[in-house]
């Protein structure tokens, strides 16, 4: 880690530029400026608000994904686990349980799934790609079985309406979901940069052998990482169920790709050892800004994929060329 990468120039400017997240932040800001010139509505309070609500869940998942990437693995199951936790919350609540209790139960089940993933990857030594793909299918499959391919609604009740507040109300004008996301991101960024537990993940991702030689329990740490990714995905799922009041069989579909992209854009490496929460969060913001712009500019849906793909590549190209930081998988 180490915040400073030999900042050649000193002074405040040099220090700012030496931040790992500087590049992606710059690209995002340029995008935001460009878009808001074309469409002033982009910076309207409503639009910012809805965009933030929309990215909060991916942002929360990105925190865990960054850790997984730092450890040298990744987690393709997060989207499905998000769906599973949303679905379980609704199912348990539908059984008559207090919805808060239902949510905690759903969280526990998902943590259990993370424990399984972590055990398979960390302790047994299975390949993260196949394992998390398998877990993805299992979790999504469970959602299909539970929802029978449709969507389930939260029942009515006093507890339900307080639960829905979690997903639908605001504090000081900021939606609670967004507040939770910001707290988690700030806390996550702080902990990843400062805590010795997170440091172990960096050691393992950088050189697992060296880490083991120094007495770090790599198996346990890796196991923990997947428990964290699952927990955060589950939190995202619970917030989604509170927000929508329903769980669909699609909740969270495709999130994993968005989130991995965001983390990599934010400076994480697929070979481990590198990555910051702040970077990943800015990456999530960048991707959301792009898709928001496509809607605001009323781009034909059939063109959207083409354009967002091109922007994605241009963004990392710009990043590379202007800052000469090498993206290497």
């Amino acid at each position, binding site marked *: 880690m180490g915040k400073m990468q030999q900042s050649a120039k000193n002074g405040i400017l040099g220090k700012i530029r030496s931040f790992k997240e500087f590049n992606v932040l710059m690209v995002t800001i340029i995008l935001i400026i460009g878009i808001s010139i074309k469409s002033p509505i982009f910076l309207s309070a409503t639009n910012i608000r809805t965009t933030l609500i929309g990215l909060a869940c991916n942002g929360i998942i990105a925190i865990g994904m960054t850790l997984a990437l730092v450890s040298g693995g990744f987690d393709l199951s997060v989207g499905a686990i998000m769906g599973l936790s949303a679905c379980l919350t609704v199912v348990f609540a539908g059984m008559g349980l207090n919805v808060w209790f239902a949510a905690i139960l759903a969280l526990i089940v998902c943590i259990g799934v993370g424990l399984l993933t972590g055990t398979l990857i960390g302790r047994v030594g299975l390949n993260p790609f196949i394992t998390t793909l398998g877990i993805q299918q299992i979790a999504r499959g469970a959602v299909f079985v539970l929802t029978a391919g449709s969507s389930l609604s939260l029942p009515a009740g006093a507890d339900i309406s307080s639960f829905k507040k979690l997903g639908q109300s605001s504090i000081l004008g900021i939606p609670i979901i967004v507040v939770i996301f910001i707290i988690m991101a700030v806390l996550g960024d702080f902990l990843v940069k400062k805590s010795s537990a997170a*440091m172990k993940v960096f050691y393992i991702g*950088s050189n697992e052998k060296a880490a083991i*030689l120094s007495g770090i329990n790599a198996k346990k740490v890796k196991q923990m990482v997947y428990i964290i990714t699952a927990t955060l995905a589950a939190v995202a799922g619970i917030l989604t169920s509170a927000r929508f009041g329903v769980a669909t069989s699609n909740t969270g579909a495709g999130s994993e790709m968005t989130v991995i992209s965001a983390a990599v854009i934010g400076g994480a490496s697929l070979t481990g050892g590198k990555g910051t929460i702040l970077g990943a969060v800015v990456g999530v913001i960048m991707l959301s800004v792009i898709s928001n712009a496509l809607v605001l500019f009323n781009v034909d849906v059939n063109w959207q994929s083409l354009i967002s793909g091109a922007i994605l590549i241009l963004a990392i190209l710009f990043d590379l060329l202007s800052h000469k930081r090498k993206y290497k998988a």
Partner: protein
Amino acid sequence: MENNIILSTENIQKSFLGTKVLKGVSIELKRGEIHALIGENGAGKSTLVNIISGVHQPDDGDIFLDGIKQEYKNPSDAQKAGIGLVHQELALCSHVTVGENVFIGRLPETGGLIDRKKLYEMTEKVLEPFESSIKPDQIVEELSVAQQQIVEIAKALSLNCKVIIFDEPTSSLNESEAQKLMNIIEDIKKQGIGILYISHKLSEIFQITDRLTVLRDGNFIETLDTGSTNSDHVISSMVGKQVKKLYPNKSTCVNEKEEILHVEGFTRLPEFKDISFTVRKGEILGLCGLVGSGRTEVSRAICGIDKSKSGEVYLNGTKVSIKCYADALNNGICYLSEDRKKDGLFVAMTLLENMMAPELKNISRFGLLNRRMVTKQMADYKQKINIKYVTVNQIMNNLSGGNQQKIMISKLLALNPKLIIMDEPTRGIDVGAKTEIHAMLRELSEAGVGVVIISSEMPEIVGMCDRVVIMNVGNLVGELKGEDITQENIIAKISEFCEY
């Protein structure tokens, strides 16, 4: 007396893949003693110390620390018991800072949070005696090999152990850094710590160690008081036969007119500036200077591995255009990297595949590979420079460090080059094989191949080269020839420049 033994092993045995690597080794290390462990490449030195420090588990035999029988399941058990090891191969986490590497697993914390200020202060303190320019908050990836080696050593020193084991700590350090390390080791010896020291550099052995143990082919040969023996005896004890001369005769056939290589005006600021020199037929040229003087950088630029701002290369009088390393190879110029792990080896691939890498073109017909040709080549070199391996289909990682280096060298020699630039060619190679390699280099040079040696080992430069060019901080600062090539003269040239 018994009380004075801090660490001992009894009848340690170990096999890898059915091959017995240690055949019952017993050694004793005293408190406050520097004890050398010497032997040819593949003799089992690293395996022994890896067993002592819990990296491997012995098949048979016991380890005693302070007279108490030990059983380590993993390295941290050994660490906790007070055994520190400086690994032969670097084991650093390259993405994190120096401080975070030195105190890996033992970061100073307050309430679960890392106290980086304190960490960097502590690191500063550990690094102090090395008088290096390494900063505690630098990312390890950005350090040179030598600097990384220092970090590795600092890591072990900071453990405050009862026993510290150094496995070839100086193989990538230059003379002055090595000297600093010697001083540090003598210091910690005074604290009553037992030190096990592995090195192929006999001068170091005779300078600092109290006793030495010789291993050969996994067998314990003897333990001697360093003071009461000499290098001839030690060498023959290691090799099992008499070795007469460490360095071959100097060249008698230098042809001043025939220039194999002429390098003109190589510049890439700030690393190096206006470097021009010549390699003549029949001579071995030495390129010397302190660490960071830019020797490696210049050589890599000449070979097209890294781009340079300007500079021209003439081979046998004609200008050649070298844009990438493949161009250099096509022209018969090859380069041996100083960092074999990073730039040289395919550790997860077989020996044969490692050997094949630069000669793909020569050994394929219709684009298909002929592995048999390479197998034969390997067998040749196995004999010539005594490479120790079981089968060519062995994974590179399983070879001892010195044997890996030997394969690196064979790989280049098999290309029949016109010019060969060797950056630290005998790093980690045992004395016996060193003489073989030196003899081979002399043979090549006599046969008209241009040979350039970069070495941090002054005796090697002095012993092998017919002419040396000296670099300092990216500048060419002088040239010495024949009898004038002495350690003192080289140092003088360097410091002369520094006075400006």
